[in-house]
């Protein structure tokens, strides 16, 4: 089965014709070039006959993203996830590709202040919305309070999940301030207090394979306490 994937958009950028991967079009183009040089033209026909039915051609779309306060204009294959747009096209490597299936949370960013998995959404779906990645939360000189708290409480070991943890924690605190309940909230009709059990449940969408969870909860709890 032809495995073309928008998960490799670096390839997109290398293709002169905008196609996303070593596609049939790319193969045919290469074959035609070889044919023109008088070498192996028959290979083109062979490749065509052995292939599966043609996939639809890539659909390239103009996409304007409002990212960390700046509008960025891109031309993207419709398949490009928001995560790939950030990492591969805008060269912002804060949001991480962990599982690419919404299971690990390493790609978490904020859309209009709400945390989402950027791997499970298409960039083109987010025109007109305010996208905040970890790079937009703070800078090395002016850390966001959550970033500072992760440093202070040693809320990481390898650091791979950390940008997602921090974006998720920032979004989670807003949800808590808005009075949203969680699964462990005893009384659905009361505003929940953000204790350790609440933080644990609300952050369950962010996996840390180094298991820095106690320190992550401490960091988040410290920011939540200061904000309360």
């Amino acid at each position: 089965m032809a495995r073309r994937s928008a998960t490799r958009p670096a390839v997109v950028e290398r293709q002169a014709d905008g196609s996303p991967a070593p596609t049939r079009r790319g193969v045919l183009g290469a074959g035609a070039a070889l044919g023109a040089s008088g070498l192996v033209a028959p290979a083109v026909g062979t490749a065509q006959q052995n292939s599966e039915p043609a996939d639809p051609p890539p659909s390239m779309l103009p996409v304007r993203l409002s990212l960390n306060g700046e509008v960025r204009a891109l031309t993207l294959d419709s398949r490009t996830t928001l995560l790939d747009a950030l990492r591969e096209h805008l060269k912002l490597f804060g949001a991480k590709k962990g599982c690419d299936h919404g299971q690990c949370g390493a790609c978490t960013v904020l859309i209009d202040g709400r945390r989402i998995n950027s791997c499970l959404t298409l960039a083109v779906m987010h025109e007109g919305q305010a996208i905040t990645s970890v790079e937009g939360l703070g800078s090395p000189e002016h850390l966001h309070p959550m970033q500072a708290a992760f440093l202070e409480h040693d809320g990481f070991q390898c650091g791979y999940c950390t940008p997602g943890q921090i974006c998720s924690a920032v979004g989670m605190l807003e949800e808590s301030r808005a009075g949203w309940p969680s699964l462990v909230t005893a009384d659905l009709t009361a505003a929940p207090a953000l204790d350790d059990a609440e933080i644990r449940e609300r952050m369950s969408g962010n996996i840390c394979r180094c298991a820095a969870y106690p320190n992550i909860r401490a960091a988040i709890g410290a920011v939540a306490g200061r904000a309360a």
Partner: protein
Amino acid sequence: MKAFSYERASSPQGAASAAASHPNAKFIAGGTNLLDLMKVEVETPNHLIDVNRLKLDAITDTPEGGLSVGALVRNSDLAADPRVRNRYGVLSRALLAGASGQLRNKATTGGNLLQRTRCYYFYDVTKPCNKREPGSGCSAIDGFNRIHAVVGASPKCIATHPSDMAVAMLALGASVQTVSPDGSARTIPIAAFHRLPGNTPERDTNLEPGELITSVTLPPPPPGVQVYRKVRDRASYAFAVVSVAAIVDRRGGAITSARLAFGGLAHKPWRVPAAEQALAGAPAATASYNAAADLVLAGARGYGFNDFKIPLTRRTLASVVGEAAQAPPARA
């Protein structure tokens, strides 16, 4: 992922008619399940119709005293709505038991109903699966079938429906409103929305091609205590092995009415009216719960790795109904 063309719908009927004019189109709302499946090429639409900008994101009171939930209301917004928390606690709890905070911020009411099964073999394009590729066979029946159905299955498919939200909505007697490509609207009781696999496991629901969910209506909440219990392999962020949505009312030591819906048991959320009738008027006691469980599990069979679901369902039912029957008659 296969390539696809993309359009943004500007009206519900426009979206439905666009779907009708593209034979291999899909609607995309939250996209959290669809894009996951497109990445592994289980879903291969060649056209996506983005319905996110349709104004279907309101929760409004109905004249009957219920709620109308727009199809694009996010799972997190529905769970946090004060009316849902006060009057439909079982729904709020079911939503909060599902997925993660990030996914609930994306996932929509309509999309949650249309989630596809989490059967491992459905996801694995190298294995036969009648749901993914009709006629290719079922790898789960003789395979690793720990998460699979024990009631309502067929020799073609033993997949389960993964939704928590839909289980609570079934207990609440919700209905699903749709618009068709010709502009006509219809209402489908949620009990008739999802299908059993039979000979056509490729069809999860009774929606027609191009039909778009526009809202879900919750009738006024029935009397009683509402409980949602989800049994799973870890405490958070996992699909149900077995789940129970219960609404139980009682007077003194007797149950006066009960509604029970189950997740993780079947190809669709599972509700057995005879079991609820058996509980009505019965004493709040273990014998009553066991008699109800017999009716819920009538004809149940395990396929090896999922045999444990049958006793687990019995025990969970007894625990949940017992908890509801002993709770103060206030709210969930």
